[in-house]
């Protein structure tokens, strides 16, 4: 009897853990690289910032690492020099979180507020079939990642 009850309990709870998710795909195409505007492009439905600096591209997640609110990118009026991990870097923009006031430099490094980690960076590559820019939001990369086309 106990085994039957335990079994029924297990199968009831297990059935609530989805095996298939009907969520938007983690890997998707953005179009041809040269069509992407210079600077920053925000993909609203993906909560993703894609940056183009001439021939190099990189993508930073717009989800705050504290509690998942969408951060807002602001271009700084005045470029500033900051020290990140002992390295002096030039910062041209900042991310701000509306929920709890976390702040990140333009490369996603957290510097104020409760966010415990930098914003996530995702892999970019060129689709072999049609040469479009592809984002893989299922694969995180280091902050020095750049896709040069």
């Amino acid at each position, binding site marked *: 009897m106990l085994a039957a009850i335990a079994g029924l309990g297990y199968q009831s709870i297990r059935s609530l853990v989805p095996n298939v998710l009907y969520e938007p795909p983690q890997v998707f195409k953005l179009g041809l690289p040269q069509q992407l505007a210079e600077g920053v492009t925000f993909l609203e439905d993906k*909560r993703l910032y894609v940056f183009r600096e001439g021939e190099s591209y990189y993508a930073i997640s717009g989800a705050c690492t*504290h*509690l998942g609110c969408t951060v807002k990118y602001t271009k700084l009026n005045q470029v500033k020099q900051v020290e990140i991990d002992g390295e002096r870097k030039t910062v041209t923009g900042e991310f701000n979180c*509306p*929920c709890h006031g976390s702040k990140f430099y333009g490369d996603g490094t957290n510097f104020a*507020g*409760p966010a415990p980690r930098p914003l996530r960076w995702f892999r970019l590559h060129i689709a072999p079939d049609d040469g479009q820019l592809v984002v893989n939001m299922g694969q995180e990369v280091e902050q020095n990642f750049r896709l040069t086309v």
Partner: protein
Amino acid sequence: MQIVQSTKKLYRRLTWSWIPRSDKEAGDAIVKNILLHWFPHKVSKGSISWWYSLWLGTMSFVLFVILTVTGIVLMFLYVPSVERAYASVKDIEYVVSFGWFLRAMHRMSAHLMVATVFLHMVRVFVTGAYKNGRSVGTNRPLNWIIGLALLICTLLLSFTGYLLPWDQLAYWAITVGTNIASAAPIVGEKIRYFLLGGNTIDQGTLIRFYVLHVFFLPVILVSLFAWHMWRIRKDGGLAVVDREALSQKPEQVAPVKSKTYSLLGITNGTTVHVQTRMVNEEENSLPSVPNLSRRIWLVTLVTMLLVMVSSIIVPTPLEAPANPSVTPNPAKAPWYFLWLQEIVTDTTIKLGSFTLNGALVGGILLPGILLVLAIWWPYRDRSSINATGVWFAPERKRQNLIFLALCLFVILLTIVGTFLRGPYWDFYWPWEAWPTTPIRF
């Protein structure tokens, strides 16, 4: 005259199958009645005083009844699907006859219930009502723990209901809330996945929260409530009864001349002096019906009035439909969780390269510690039996002050979160204007 008496007789025949001939018969009738058997035959005057319990528990129950009744009607009108939830709430608000009033009553009762259950807990603590008296078989600490479970159940009911309108307010409050769960070590991400039914707040989440809100949590709450009430009866009523029993001066009964048995045989003498306490005596207690029942009706009436009037006065917000890509600025949790939101903002700890997420400290560890402390406290409280059921007993002064300071801290953080936080969670005085920030990025 004859007609009046005949009418009375007819009315009695129609409404009564039997009429009690004595107080005892009337009392038995109450105990045997399924609706009235919650009540004892008689209650002490202290238990039904307005100022001892403030009737906050009764108010909470009345609010729950209002929530159930309005909630059942809303269930006929609400569609728990991502595509239609927002539109159905909009219909309830603007198209359905009295829909706005039903929704407003449901919302106001939910907010008031969180407040009354919290205040009820505060009252029980400061009166030391979780302490056992002298009676045998009492277990008030257990009832205090059941009460804490009821408070958590109330908060969860309110939280799960928060998502259902599927507007911006709902979506982002649940984003913040479920991300706090994911900050738990090791199993956090799994808990979030299970709660949401996936990685994002979508149809899976809505239906889960809906089922929890309309079935699981109410069933748990009703079961706990029945247990709570049953324990009150088992514990001999409210804690104030124990105080009354103690405060009664033993009365000496005049010795009666009689024969006394001793080892040496029967001798003439007086009986042993019997000392009695008066708590169960007629002058200290009243029949439950109508004294208790009348007050319960009055509290019900006042609570309903409060809910109805506040539902008319206070506007019920319905923001723009949920949009996962636009976070409102500022994004705030429901008011009763704003103290937690305030804590999670301020408790990210950095020790060299090691960072402890504020969500874990403020969202899980701190409330967890507070809850464990609250469960343990009745067993830790070593104050004497004289401090049971007494408002601000001098013996419990220090613990009452610490408890009230904690409550005040929570209330203060709630006020700061509600009124003094603006865009990017920056601090603004109420008279300061918020800077205009773009809604879309």
